[in-house]
């Protein structure tokens, strides 16, 4: 039973000359870790907005087809009704955190849902703990580093206990070390808490080891869908997505006539393949 099911989903923003997404049909099972990628303008952000109800509630336009998230049809529910089921973390942590203490920002979601104070307290403490920022709870968000801010943004969404979490390029503004750390946090949410993750990313080199599924979009349509190994081939390269460097390296070696079992998508896999090649 899919937790996200899209059937022939299309959307054209008001005033746009063509649809941003066209004929999207995809099913995502609970617990999957899906990476959504594609060149700029391919429709990734539009899909994200559909998934949590910002489309059609916040953004107007022509909505065709069907999108069901956790049993609810996006067309028939407000973003607020969908919020406890599907949460979204945005690119820029600065514009998501607006309170003067991390704790209050994390409490904002549960408070909006009208939960009792004791319940909100429990959820806030839990979310801060899971994301590893309990010691920072009284600090104002602008005093935190980028990586800490994104953790706080994730905690703020987590406190609503959604079954699905969408993250739109959360590492964009982070330095490489923080980017790796935040991906570990996201991976834990998936592995330990069973939250379905839909991660929009350009930096496939750092997400490939966590994802069990990569969906590539181009010009508003889904063009590739499979495991990283399935997807990181010539077609992907032609579309222009940023394959992990090791994958590109091995694609080149393959063209040079070198044989090996499987194209690696992570450094560890690549090390293995090269060792085997050299020992032969």
């Amino acid at each position: 039973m899919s937790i996200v099911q899209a059937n022939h989903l299309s959307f054209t923003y008001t005033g746009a000359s063509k649809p941003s997404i066209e004929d999207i049909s995809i099913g995502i099972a609970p617990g999957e870790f899906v990476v959504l990628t594609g060149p700029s303008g391919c429709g990734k952000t539009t899909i994200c907005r559909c998934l949590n109800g910002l489309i059609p509630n916040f953004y107007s336009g022509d909505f065709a087809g069907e999108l069901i998230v956790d049993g609810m049809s996006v067309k028939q529910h407000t973003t607020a009704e969908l919020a406890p089921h599907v949460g979204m973390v945005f690119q820029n942590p600065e514009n998501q955190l607006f309170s003067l203490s991390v704790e209050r920002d994390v409490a904002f979601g549960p408070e909006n849902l009208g939960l009792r104070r004791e319940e909100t307290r429990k959820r806030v403490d839990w979310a801060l703990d899971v994301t590893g920022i309990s010691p920072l709870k009284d600090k104002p968000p602008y005093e935190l580093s980028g990586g800490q801010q994104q953790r706080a943004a994730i905690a703020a969404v987590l406190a609503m206990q959604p079954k699905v979490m969408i993250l739109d390029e959360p590492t964009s503004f982070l330095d490489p070390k923080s980017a790796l750390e935040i991906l570990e946090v996201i991976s834990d949410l998936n592995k330990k808490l069973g939250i379905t993750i839909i991660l929009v990313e350009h930096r496939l080199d750092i997400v490939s080891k966590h994802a069990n599924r990569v969906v590539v979009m181009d010009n508003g349509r889904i063009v590739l869908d499979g495991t990283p190994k399935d997807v990181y081939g010539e077609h992907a390269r032609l579309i222009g997505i940023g394959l992990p460097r090791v994958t590109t390296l091995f694609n080149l070696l393959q063209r040079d006539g070198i044989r090996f079992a499987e194209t690696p998508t992570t450094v560890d896999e690549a090390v293995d393949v090269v060792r085997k090649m050299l020992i032969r």
Partner: protein
Amino acid sequence: MSLKVFDGFKFAKLPTPIHNMDPRAKFIMTMGIFAAALMFQNIYALIIIFLIQLPIVYASRSWRKWAGSMRAGLLLAVLIFVMNFVFGSTFVFSAAMTLRFVTLMSTFSLFFMTTSPDDLGLALEQTHVPYTLSFTFTTSVRLVPTMALDAQTVIDAQRSRGLELDRGNFMKRIRNYIPILIPLIVSAIRRSIELAEALESRGFGASPNRQPLIVLRMKATDYLVVTLTILMVTLAVYVYFYVPLPILDIPIKMPKIFPWF
């Protein structure tokens, strides 16, 4: 254009009794000074009212910022003085009106400087102002320093393209601010949209019954401040009606060179 004018209203967290005061009590205290300042025209009374702020500023450890906020209002203060004097008021009266203005401005500056926008919002909520209104208010206050930073970046970016803000005649200078204002407004709009998206995604407006995690509770000291304020206002009213205050008369007046008197 100095952006330091915003510093005087920007909240900074410090562990002082003024900062820790319940915002509702603080507001009542501020309004008390406000009311007293509006009541009197006598320069001696206004001086006293202005001086009442000083122990409060001392307790809040915000001298420099407080002084800065008054410096920012200097232009307006001078304008008020000049307008009063030129249109026939005595020197002392004009000074009194100026002092009144400065008192009003500095007292509100003190309030905002020592009250976090979050606490303000909570205070508004707990006094049953509709949530959307109180939220709009506190978010606006909170965004002021952010916008100030944005403004500085825009100024830097445009100066790096050869824009000179301190050159040219009056008209040119005003036109030179267009490349500053437009990106600032656009930035503000984009920022607001992003914030709105994030708020919607966290269920803003989902339920009419919000139970905030953190609740303001008035402590004994807060009630004391309210009581003192009420006493002070009562005293002020009494003095206004029943106590003849000494009048200061400095015989300086605007020479009769203008036709309106």
